[in-house]
């Protein structure tokens, strides 16, 4: 895989070190973690799959866009694929910048674009052994055999 996708656990410290620079006084990190909260009890793990080549390209575009918007920002990112257990991060984004506002804004921009654009999918692995595709909100999609249950106007459109 390329720079951004990985099947290994994410080393957050190494990613922070990668973004660091002497002129960067503020660093914002976002970690997305597989959760097992009241909305999704019984989750043991999530299996992440991707359209690998496009996901790498899309992450390059997203990071490139962020660097253009916040020219002082240094960004490091890792998205994990494959089996990710509850409590482990599936994504880590680090944005270091001369001042903290830029770091927060760049980091937030990257995760929002990831959620909007990245061709990655999640299958929940339940403790009872069952598996279910989950939609972007983390809820199970309609069972196979039915269309998405979304009208065309709900689908994101992209330029």
């Amino acid at each position, binding site marked *: 895989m390329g720079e951004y996708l990985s099947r290994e656990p994410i080393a957050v410290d190494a990613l922070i070190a990668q973004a660091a620079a002497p002129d960067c006084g503020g660093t914002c990190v976002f970690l*997305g973690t597989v959760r097992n909260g009241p909305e999704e009890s019984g989750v043991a793990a999530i299996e*992440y*799959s*991707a*359209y690998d*080549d*496009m*996901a790498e*390209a*899309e992450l390059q575009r997203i990071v490139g866009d962020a660097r253009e918007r916040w020219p002082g920002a240094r960004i490091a990112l890792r*998205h994990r694929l494959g089996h990710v257990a509850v409590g482990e991060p*599936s*994504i880590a984004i680090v944005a270091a910048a001369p001042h903290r506002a830029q770091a927060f804004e760049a980091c937030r921009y990257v*995760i929002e674009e*990831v*959620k*909007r*654009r*990245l*061709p*990655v*999918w*999640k*299958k929940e692995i339940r403790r009872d052994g069952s598996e279910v*595709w*989950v*939609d*972007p909100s*983390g809820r199970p*999609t309609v069972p*196979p*055999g*039915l*269309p*998405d249950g*979304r009208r*065309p106007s709900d*689908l*994101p*459109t*992209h*330029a």
Partner: protein
Amino acid sequence: MTVRFFARYAELVGREEAAVLLSLPATVADVVRRVREELPGARQLPERPLAAVNLKHVKLDAGVRDGDEVAFLPPVAGG
């Protein structure tokens, strides 16, 4: 051109990839129509899926050319 299916769509269609022949000029919407007609299981895909051509998100009225890689993407859930 090559058409690729991912995640739940690959399960619905029962395959991850198909070769499709179309008379040009044609759009992504034409590819969707052809795939839904010709591949068993593909009728279960939405009529207006999220689509990509050559690793970029596109609208369904985007043109396609010989040799393009067209992909149908379930709602994305990264992060």
